[in-house]
């Protein structure tokens, strides 16, 4: 490969998602699950997407993987480009399949996400057989090696066992081994630790970080646990009601939170920092019905700082710096109210 094309490749963003919108036809009407989402992921970096249940996090990544059942789901607009090539609606780019080869994925509940009647080793070997044309023996040996890499003891014996003989944490390790078997450039982890014990959670996160250092893959981490975000992420996208309401580096989003929802999330989270201890404040109410999304800001009904305009008009992205934006009218220059809880442009954190 020539030096020029290498440089060219490096210059391209690994993954760029633009204006992605996904809808579902249901009996009750059309659910606008994702309503125009933009983000980018760089080589070897971790992007965390946070938000409460039903805000469209999983749908966003599943639509890139072609895992949305169609019908009822369909992607109404937007694009997702992997190294500059469109992946939406396609199975492979440049002769390499997207699912399993370019992008690996692990899921929330490892107990149900593995085939109960198939040996663990066979399940890990499967993508190698499918994408790399390995023979059964070769693929199985590689599966054992991957299990070892995922720090599963007695890997060759374990590979011949079935999912019900594994513990939850072990299964998630096996899932990770499976997802990275074809050395994908991106690993999508959809709430990988939610179903696990707290002690196991840390081990799984460590494993993911170690593997990231070894292979240089990017990670898209979906979670509603801000602790996990702080530990893992380089960048954070906060999603609410199908939109990204705040995006920035992990420091910006945590220490210079610029959207009332991010602040609300933080206040609802316990902390062990004695200087920052506070009462836990739940965010009152529930997200808007996405059958009929509100014309203005989706958070308006629950926002303590809501203004007249929030109810009627959609806010644009207000950039606080190059990579940090917030989708909130409070950042408009004419907005009279500038609450202390929020970070504003030019204000000290």
């Amino acid at each position, binding site marked *: 490969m020539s030096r020029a094309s290498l440089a060219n490749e490096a210059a391209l963003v690994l993954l760029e998602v633009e204006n992605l919108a996904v809808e579902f036809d249901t009996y009750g009407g059309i659910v606008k699950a994702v309503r125009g989402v933009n983000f980018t992921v760089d080589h070897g970096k971790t992007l965390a997407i946070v938000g409460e249940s039903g805000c469209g996090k999983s749908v966003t990544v599943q639509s890139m993987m072609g895992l949305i059942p169609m019908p009822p789901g369909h992607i109404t607009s937007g694009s997702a480009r992997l190294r500059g090539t469109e992946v939406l609606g396609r199975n492979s780019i440049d002769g390499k399949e997207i699912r399993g080869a370019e992008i690996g994925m692990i*899921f929330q509940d490892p107990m149900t996400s593995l*085939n109960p009647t198939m040996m663990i080793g066979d399940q890990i070997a499967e993508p190698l057989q499918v994408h790399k044309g390995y023979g059964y023996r070769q693929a199985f040996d590689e599966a054992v090696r991957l299990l070892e890499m995922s720090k599963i003891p007695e890997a060759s014996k374990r590979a011949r066992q079935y999912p019900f003989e594994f513990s939850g944490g072990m299964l998630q390790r096996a899932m990770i081994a499976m997802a990275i078997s074809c050395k994908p450039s991106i690993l999508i982890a959809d709430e990988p630790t939610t179903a696990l014990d707290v002690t196991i959670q840390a081990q799984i996160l460590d494993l993911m970080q170690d593997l990231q250092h070894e292979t240089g893959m990017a990670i898209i981490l979906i979670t509603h646990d801000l602790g996990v975000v702080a530990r893992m992420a380089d960048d954070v996208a906060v999603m609410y009601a199908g939109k990204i309401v705040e995006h920035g580096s992990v420091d910006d989003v945590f220490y210079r939170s610029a959207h009332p929802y991010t602040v609300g999330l933080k206040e609802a989270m316990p902390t062990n920092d004695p200087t920052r201890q506070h009462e836990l404040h739940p965010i009152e109410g529930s997200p808007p019905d996405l059958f009929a999304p509100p014309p203005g800001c989706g958070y308006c009904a629950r926002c303590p700082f809501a203004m007249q305009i929030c109810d009627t008009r959609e806010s644009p992205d207000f950039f606080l710096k190059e990579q940090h934006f917030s989708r909130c009218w409070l950042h408009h220059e004419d907005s009279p109210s500038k609450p202390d809880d929020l970070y504003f442009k030019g204000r000290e954190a």
Partner: protein
Amino acid sequence: MWLYVIKRLLQGIITVWFIATATFFAMHNVPGDPLLNDRAVTEAIRANLEARYGLDQPIGTQYLLYLRNLSRGDFGISFTQENREVNDIIREHFPVSAILGILAVVFAAAGGVLFGALTAIYRNRLPDYIIMFLVILGISVPSFVVAALSQLMLVTLNSAVGTTVLPVAGWGTILHMLVPAMVLGLGTMAYLTRLMRSSMLEVISSDFVRTAKSKGVPPARIFAKHQLRNAILPVITVLGPAIAAITTGGFVVELVFAIPGLGRFFVQAVQQLDYTVIMGTTVFYGAFLVFMVIVVDVLYGFIDPRVRLE
């Protein structure tokens, strides 16, 4: 695993004992003296039979005698057909019923799995609607009507073609077996199709199929390696009772198609009140069904690792 098989076999023997006991007391309750029947035999045979079954003894002794004969595999001699042992009758007619039943079960299971999987994959589309409509018909129309209609169709077919494409009744070649086996298996197939459909629908929307998709496994391989094997499990669990339903349901088909099977013989024996044949056939069928259920359960263990390794 072997321990499990042995345990099941022991349970099976106790169950067969229960069936034999229930049969004995039910038959003992039949009003009238079995030997006072006008079809009964000469004085010498009568004395012979009385001694053999201890008919002049108290019921407890009769029962023990009966159990002893049974445990030796001796079902006795027919009351109405001189010098014919019940064992001979079973040996002669059961293979016919068994072949018919096995064909019907294979037909029902294969069809049920195939159509169930199809309807689930084409859910709410034309193939689904057509198959489910036929399934509902198959569940609702009694087997004797299906048997009669298929005979009618065979008659029409044969007369339209001009030669005997498929025989309308009788037994002998594979051609004789085809239509009766299909008729016999139809109701079970409809039931299995429904079961397979709901099981398949559950599997299609399951997490592990989503995982397989995320791995980039092609749909045909997902179907073969992930969906089919898991969806088929509930179907296998009901296969034991299904075999029972099919083998005893064979009566009607054997009657309508004039097949010399054990079912037809049983009906005949009941009409003639042939005690030993009735009892022998019932116990034999019961033992056969118990055994089939055990076989199916063990088979299930080989397919589902969760059961095998328990």
